[in-house]
């Protein structure tokens, strides 16, 4: 339960998110303490469990106090976050960004008997000077689309609408390793902005269109809590930190020069060249010496005596 929020916020810097991360940490800790208490009450008490319970109670009260303090500044520090990098290693890509769904961000504004939906708004960072308001004058959420805002250039557009994620039992990231559970974990835990490449060009598409983003562009995201019956905005997060999509380089700029020659190549080339030269010199020397011997008459007699000796030796060998 806890790892979903705990794991992802540890690496993020910036003072503005640390309070939000602390609050998230505390709420999940609070839930885990509640769960521990209920299980302790149900099961048989042992001395070790009793000790755990008392220390649990103390930390529970500490957590509650901090929690109330945190709730006062909750609205100031809730922001959409990127999905956990341990889970989604390819994020953001050239045209998509995977965001964590807003777990436990709107819990203070939820009434038990009403139905709510969460809308996700996307805009380019540069559009914040033009317009960054997601509600109209009567507190209803904006119904802008990707085409109307030129891909978020003129203002925020609605990219998605989904149910409020389950704060009490969030998906366990450890389950993402299991083939059977990974689809559910991904669906419950994150939302991929820019996932649908065909809805822009499909005239029959009636749902909220989530087309791919532009590469090398900074975007900002916001979650909005909407009451389904009244259709008005109940709560909203802050605009997220600017998130930039990847930039792609051209392959023709890749340098394929191999660098220095390797040592092996130099050794082989030099030694073999020298040896070829020596062999040619040796051949010339032996041919030359053979010519000199054949011209020299004294050498001829020497050669003759050698051949007679060899011819004497051969019959001896053949007899043996």
């Amino acid at each position, binding site marked *: 339960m806890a790892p979903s929020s705990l794991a992802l916020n540890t690496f993020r810097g910036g003072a503005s998110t640390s309070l939000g991360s602390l609050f998230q940490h505390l709420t999940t800790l609070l839930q885990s303490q509640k769960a521990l208490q209920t299980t302790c009450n149900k099961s048989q008490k042992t001395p070790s469990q009793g000790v755990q319970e008392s220390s649990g109670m103390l930390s529970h009260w500490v957590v509650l106090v901090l929690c109330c303090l945190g709730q006062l500044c909750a609205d100031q520090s809730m922001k959409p976050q990127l999905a956990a990098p341990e*889970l989604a290693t390819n994020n953001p890509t050239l045209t998509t960004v995977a965001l964590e769904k807003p777990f436990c961000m709107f819990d203070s504004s939820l009434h038990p008997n009403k139905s709510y939906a969460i809308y996700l708004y996307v805009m380019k960072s540069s559009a914040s000077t033009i317009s960054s308001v997601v509600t109209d004058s009567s507190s209803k959420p904006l119904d802008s689309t990707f085409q109307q805002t030129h891909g978020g250039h003129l203002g925020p557009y609605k990219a998605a609408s989904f149910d409020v994620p389950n704060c009490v039992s969030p998906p366990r990231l450890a389950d*993402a390793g299991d083939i059977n559970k990974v*689809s559910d974990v991904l669906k419950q835990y994150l939302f991929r902005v820019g996932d649908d490449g065909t809805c822009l060009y499909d005239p029959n598409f009636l749902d909220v269109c989530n087309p791919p983003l532009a590469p090398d562009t900074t975007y900002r995201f916001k979650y909005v809590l909407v009451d389904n019956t009244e259709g008005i905005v109940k709560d909203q997060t802050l605009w997220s930190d600017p998130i930039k999509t990847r930039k*792609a*380089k051209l392959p023709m700029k890749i340098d394929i020069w191999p660098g220095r020659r390797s040592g*092996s190549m130099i050794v082989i080339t030099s030694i073999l060249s020298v040896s*070829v030269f020596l062999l040619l010199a040796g*051949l010339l020397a032996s041919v030359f010496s*053979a010519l000199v011997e054949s011209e020299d008459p004294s050498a001829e007699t020497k*050669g003759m005596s050698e051949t007679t000796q060899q011819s004497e030796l051969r019959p001896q060998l053949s007899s043996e």
Partner: protein
Amino acid sequence: MAKTDNGIRICQGLLILGNVVIGMCGIALTAECIFFVSDPHGLYPLLEATENNDIYAAAWIGIFVGFALLALSILGIVGVMKSSKTLLLVYIILMLITYAFEMASCITAATHRDFLTPNLFLKQMLERYMKSDTDNNNDKQMTEGVTKTWDNLMLQCCGVHGPLDWQEYTSAFRMTHNDADYPWPHNCCVMNTRSEPINLDGCKLGVPGFYNSNGCYDAISGPLNRQAWGVAWFGFAILCWTFCVLLGTMFYWSRIAY
């Protein structure tokens, strides 16, 4: 007389031994080069597309040099045993020609190995994999070869340095496959027995366990390095031995009479 007799015998014995070793090395060289030319890892299309396939040329030369060494070693043994000046002169000259060819093979293999850098394969992968508009038949053949080879390679790895190669650079693949559906080719995903990704969303997001996260450079450079070093260094060793045998043969040739 006995001394020179013994000297000649020793010389003959050494030369025959040297030629026997050359003959065996020739057979080994032929076998090794046939193994490399048969391309057991299927990497030849990659080199053909880079127009840098000279380590295969070196292996082809090695096959014929191996045969030549075997034949010439037999000629050398016969010549030494008969102490025939003509035979030995023919042996020396032909052996020098074979020496030159083998030298060319070794130097080619060693030199062209240096060209096979990761960037070379990266550039070729990005420019040729699944390229849709090919200029001519030659281009089309090379593209098909590269695509097929990479599809095979990607069963166990992705990209040259890693799958992020597909994200960091534009490519011919990116022209026909958009980034939202194909951040990297689906062959990079872990596949089930029916050659489908076991979870496409997990693969697209980069969830560990659902895509191949290691780069293919080791799988490419390993076999190619072994080929280049095998041809170059084994050939070099044979040539060192042949150098000694040839010098000895020349000395022996100059000492015997017609």
